[in-house]
């Protein structure tokens, strides 16, 4: 008996199906290109499976509904740039109230309305810093269809484990590309029961108790700084403990969360560091450059936040130059520079923000140029 099922799905369809695989039983959203197919598919599938689909009056309300529903359900919303901006305040509420939920951001050109049907990767800093206040963030940036499936499921698992909103950032190319692939069926993808999981982990990943609504428990949920009982406090030591908890529960567990894809990275002169869909163009460029005798390899970041600082520092210390292709003006490049902690590192960007994907030839040209200068 085969352990695999071959499908022909677009990225948005893959996300919807993966969410159901993870046990998602609540979706609230407001349609926005290029994410709308996720809502469209779940509006059919969730009611069939006994779940709830809500189209709310706007993006803000949709995020509010997701936060509320998460106290009893596994919740999802999907959006794109302008909607992602509107959701930020309620994402902060989810962080502060330690409410597990998953947010899909299908990145399109911005700022503002921007280029709704064109790909971009310029929300990656907003994912980390879009809401105010000290906190950490988990954001995943898959590339290939099977990875989109796995990482969407993993987003639900991580959100339950760490009691925090988890983001999956793809772009218009991934969302709208329909492709043949095998659905993985292994145990890693089995749903985890949120409350049981939480009770097992209590005290480690949760500052205060977490019970479903309507189960006979007294619960108090607030966006104010609060005590371990869930009630507002102004006591500096308690507030300090709470905020340190929000940051440390993720930052100190980086090794559990970090995931990268490495390609031909042993003994390289030039490292390409990228995330999301430019990973495919990068691999194609590397194959051509390798055939020309250039020692170049790829580190593709799958867990973008928390940022793989140590992994990148180690890599940069062992190469002569780094190329960072990304569909923004240098957001990842800045993080790589920060991680490297070296002023002499040769960092080269390939930055496309016009709505066209980065082509292998553009990366290959940069590899050759950098190689000539070594």
């Amino acid at each position, binding site marked *: 008996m085969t352990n695999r099922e071959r499908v022909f799905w677009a990225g948005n369809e893959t996300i919807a199906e993966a969410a159901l695989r993870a046990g998602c039983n609540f979706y609230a959203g407001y349609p926005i290109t290029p994410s709308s197919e996720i809502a469209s598919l779940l509006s059919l599938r969730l009611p069939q499976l006994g779940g709830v689909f809500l189209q709310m009056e706007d993006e803000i309300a949709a995020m509010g509904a997701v936060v509320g529903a998460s106290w009893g359900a596994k919740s999802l919303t999907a959006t794109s740039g302008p909607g992602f901006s509107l959701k930020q305040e309620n994402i902060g509420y989810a962080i502060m109230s330690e409410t597990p939920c998953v947010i899909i951001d299908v990145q399109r050109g911005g700022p503002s309305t921007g280029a709704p049907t064109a790909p971009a990767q310029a929300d990656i800093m907003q994912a980390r810093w879009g809401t105010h206040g000290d906190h950490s963030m988990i954001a995943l940036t898959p590339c290939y269809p099977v990875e989109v499936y796995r990482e969407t499921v993993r987003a639900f698992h991580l959100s339950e484990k760490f009691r925090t909103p988890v983001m999956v950032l793809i772009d218009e190319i991934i969302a709208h*590309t329909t492709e043949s692939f095998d659905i993985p069926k292994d145990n890693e993808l089995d749903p985890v029961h949120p409350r049981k999981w939480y009770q097992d982990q209590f005290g480690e990943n949760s500052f205060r108790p977490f019970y479903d609504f309507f189960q006979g428990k007294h619960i108090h949920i607030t966006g104010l700084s609060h005590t371990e009982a869930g009630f507002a406090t102004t006591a500096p030591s308690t507030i300090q403990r709470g905020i340190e908890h929000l940051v440390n529960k993720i930052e100190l567990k980086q090794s559990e969360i970090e995931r990268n894809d490495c390609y031909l990275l042993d003994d390289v002169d030039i490292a390409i560091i990228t995330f999301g869909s430019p990973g495919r163009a990068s691999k194609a460029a590397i194959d051509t450059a390798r055939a020309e005798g250039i020692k170049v390899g790829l580190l593709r970041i799958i867990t973008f936040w928390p940022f793989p600082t140590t992994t990148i520092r180690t890599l940069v210390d062992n190469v002569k130059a780094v190329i960072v292709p990304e569909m923004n003006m240098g957001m990842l490049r800045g993080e790589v520079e920060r991680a490297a902690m070296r002023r002499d590192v040769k960092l080269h960007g390939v930055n496309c923000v016009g709505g066209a994907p980065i082509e292998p030839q553009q990366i290959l040209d940069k590899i050759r140029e950098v190689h000539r200068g070594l």
Partner: protein
Amino acid sequence: MRTEIRFAGVGSQGNILAGEWVAQAAHNMGLNALQSPTYTAQVRGGPTSVDVLIDKDPIGYPRLTSIDFFLCLAQGAWNLFGTQLKTESVVVIDPNLVTKVTPGPQKIYLIPIIQATKQAVEKPVYTSAVSLGIFCRLMSTIPQEQMIRTIEQHAPSGTVEKNLIAFRAGWDIVSSVTPVPRDELAMASV
């Protein structure tokens, strides 16, 4: 071997649907297939294209870099998406809709696709099926019977028969067309 296919035109002509069905047929044959549409925020009338990649091996870069088959139904789409062609690319245009062509090494099939669709099934809405017939006849990528099966499976209910008539019209019209050197068309465009 990697095969690269692009259908282009304006929104509502059914070009994206044609690409979806080619990719679906290839997937049904057990090949690795990928289709990726490009369109604008306009509901109708904006330039659209669909890129289809078919390969026995896993597909790397998901967009086209060296096109094997290009069918275009609008001047604006030709200007935007008529790139990445190689000398041996099979190129089809509707000469009523693409009238200005720049020089190049390819040979181009001039097929009045919209007109042929109206003649075959009266409504231009079946243009995508005519395009598929042309594609199947000119390329050996998808066998005719596989394409027909895919149309039967995926055409909206009540439209299968007309889609198949349109498909056969596209298949048949190819035999009456001889490709013209692109340079000659470019001279005539000036």
